[in-house]
């Protein structure tokens, strides 16, 4: 078993977390999130065309009065991704764009992917994404409240907020796209981070019962050390899988796997440095869990 002294670093870690958390909130509020067409509406076209440049595609689209157009290379040489913030009637727009590109570019154009989301649908998708994330946080809160005491419940939820907000903050900072798969990633991060926190909490509760004389900082420190090997091994195997997706899984999964990698790193950090110290601020002791047990046994 390792014997690092985590509890002396709690204070610095917490200040660090609070700063990161607020920077993230400021970024999300003022710089905003880079919503993809799933949440903003518009048209996305992925095409493959050899011997074509971004500028020539842009020139073709410039003459069409499409509003905000974004063209970039996407993965392999010859692959491009265009995003059009379109207003008009999409039933006619997509065939028109396709036709213009096929006619004007000098080489063959293969339209690999076309996505279009109308304004109503994108608003609904955003709403259901927010509901899903909120609901998962509420469900976790409830589960921990049933399984543990309320102090643990609050501690784990604060850690979850910390993870989700900072992950989104990094996405905002780097202007990475938020789409449906990022929502899936955030939900999985919520599950993973909770999983990590629960393992440490389980041990803290067990140790509270065993060592009545130790105070909560020492108990937390002991429990973190006892579970540290597991925490690291699981993070490593999960990260191995995620890096495999990130590097080999193709462009479509890149954002998703990046969000998950960030989430796993932040989630592992937060279960040690956020979720555990919070118990100290709530003055959790062996009495906390004893009271709870008395209630159950009549």
């Amino acid at each position, binding site marked *: *078993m390792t014997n690092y002294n985590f509890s002396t670093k709690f204070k610095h870690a917490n200040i660090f977390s609070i700063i990161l958390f607020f920077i993230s909130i400021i970024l999300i509020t003022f710089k905003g999130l880079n919503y993809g067409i799933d949440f903003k509406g518009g048209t996305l076209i*992925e095409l493959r065309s050899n011997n074509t440049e971004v500028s020539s595609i842009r020139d073709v689209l410039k003459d069409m009065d499409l509003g905000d157009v974004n063209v970039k290379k996407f993965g392999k040489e010859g692959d491009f991704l265009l995003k059009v913030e379109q207003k008009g009637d*999409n*039933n006619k727009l997509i*065939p028109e764009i*396709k036709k213009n590109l096929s006619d004007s570019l000098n080489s063959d154009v*293969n*339209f690999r*992917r*076309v*996505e*279009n*989301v*109308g304004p*109503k*649908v994108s608003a609904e*998708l955003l709403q*259901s*994404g927010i*509901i*899903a994330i909120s*609901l*998962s946080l509420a*469900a*976790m809160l409830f*589960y921990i409240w049933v399984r543990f005491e309320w102090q643990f419940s609050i501690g784990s939820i604060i850690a979850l907020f910390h993870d989700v907000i900072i992950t989104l903050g990094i996405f905002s900072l780097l202007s990475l796209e938020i789409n*449906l*798969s990022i*929502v*899936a990633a955030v*939900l*999985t991060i*919520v*599950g993973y981070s*909770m*999983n990590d926190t*629960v*393992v440490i909490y*389980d041990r803290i509760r067990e140790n509270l019962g065993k060592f009545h004389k130790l105070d909560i900082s020492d108990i937390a420190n002991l429990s973190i050390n*006892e*579970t540290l*090997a*597991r925490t690291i*091994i*699981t993070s490593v*195997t*999960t*990260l*191995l*899988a*995620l890096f*495999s*997706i990130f*590097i*080999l*899984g*193709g462009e*479509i*999964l890149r954002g998703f*796997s990046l969000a998950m990698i960030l989430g796993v790193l932040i989630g592992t950090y937060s279960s040690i440095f956020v979720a555990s110290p919070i118990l100290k601020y709530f003055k959790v002791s062996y009495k906390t869990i004893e009271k709870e047990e008395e209630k159950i046994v009549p």
Partner: protein
Amino acid sequence: MLNFSKINVLFIYFLLIFISIFSFLNLQNDDDRIIKKKINLGLDLQGGSYLLLEINSDNLIKEKIQSKVIPIKKLLKDNQINYNNFKINEKSLSVSIDNIEKFDILFSSRQDNLVNPYIDNYRSYELEYKKKNNNQIEISFSKFGLLTVNNSALKQSIEIVRRRIDDIGTKEPTILQRGEKRILVELPGLKDPERIKALLGKTAQLNFRLVSDNNEFGTEELISENGEKLNVSKRIIMSGENLIDAQPSIQNQNNEPTVSFTLDRLGAQKFGRVSTDNVGKRLAIVLDGEIVSAPNINEPITSGNGMISGNFTFQEATDLALLLRSGALPTPLIVVEERTVGPDLGEDSIKSGITSLIIGFILVILFMLYKYKFFGLIANTALIANLFMLMGVLTILEATLTLPGIAGIILTVGMAVDANVLIFERIREELKTEKSIIHAFDSGYNRAKITVLDANITTLIAAIILFAFGSGPVKGFAITLGIGIITTLFTAYFLARHLTSLVVLNTKNKEINI
């Protein structure tokens, strides 16, 4: 925790093998399947189009409220209620009447009320009216009236959409109702959805009207196929409802593609009468408010067969015939969401998905071997069994595998070892204080049990919520992640535990390193 009864062992391996066998069903050839279960590939992997269509409800309500004008006027006239200022608004009608009490009784009568029918299902009338000022009232659809109008239009649209898609002949289309106004269409393997979108975008309301300058029903100016401005009567002689068949054909004289149609008995009678009375006049064939062609009536047409020509290409003639055969949509459909993946991108996604799965799997296996040596082997056996069971369950459920779904499997591989790691680490701790190895293993499993369960339930909750709220590919992720957790718990707690017990019970308290 290390003692297994024979029945238990039998049950564990039976379940393991039984479920795993299903994963091999996916290797069968499509033609000679013995058991017709397999994992379906999502549109993002096999290529195809997903379309979400919405009925244009505003347009529909406008038309429906207009259709109430004549019955309401008739009701007022028949019952000697004087009215003036009859106005048609976007979604309502307003009129001033001199006897609101009498109108109210008639309007809310439950018997033979053709103007304002009572909808039994909702215990509500189709229409409602509000008093504006003095004797002016405004009539509009009630909440449930709107619902009924939308619902019946949607049901009818689904039917027409199905006919049109079946007629084109795509393989295994999915056509489903989504909510109150939407239709979900999935067309696997379709390369170019533009033709289908064009076909679904047309209501295809066909009618035959006379070209005339003055008419008791009023006229409107429409532009013909060759740019001529024509005054066309608003009176509809006959509409597409009377068509029983339409086929593309080539006119012999000049090789021009045309659409020939056959009318039902009623249509043939009407058409015969009108064409007899109006020989020498022109007949406008109007499709969705545009003149397709306006030929001269040279002689009475009583056979019930006719032909539409209008400078068509053969493709256009084929599409028009298809639209006429399938019937008219009650209101235009708008594509509110579209996702099309070309077949080569789908193939690329499968390749990169499988590559990353294999590499991720090998990395995790090597890491576990390095970390736990012999017990790593047990964890890896459980991991492989886990993968087969996961594929087996997906096959049994005939689930749809998407690209995020593959990511979910890879993630399961990464996280599945957690259960065994938790247990092994616990056993390591127990070995320090416990003298008997068997006891150490036993209490290791026992004490880790609750933690493993707690830890996995949290991820399962996230997966369930994702399944409920996710759409399309993301749902596929939720499915593999959720099922992965359950197979993980089974393989870690039954298979790996049994394998461990075999090892521990046979070494009899000699040194064991974990």
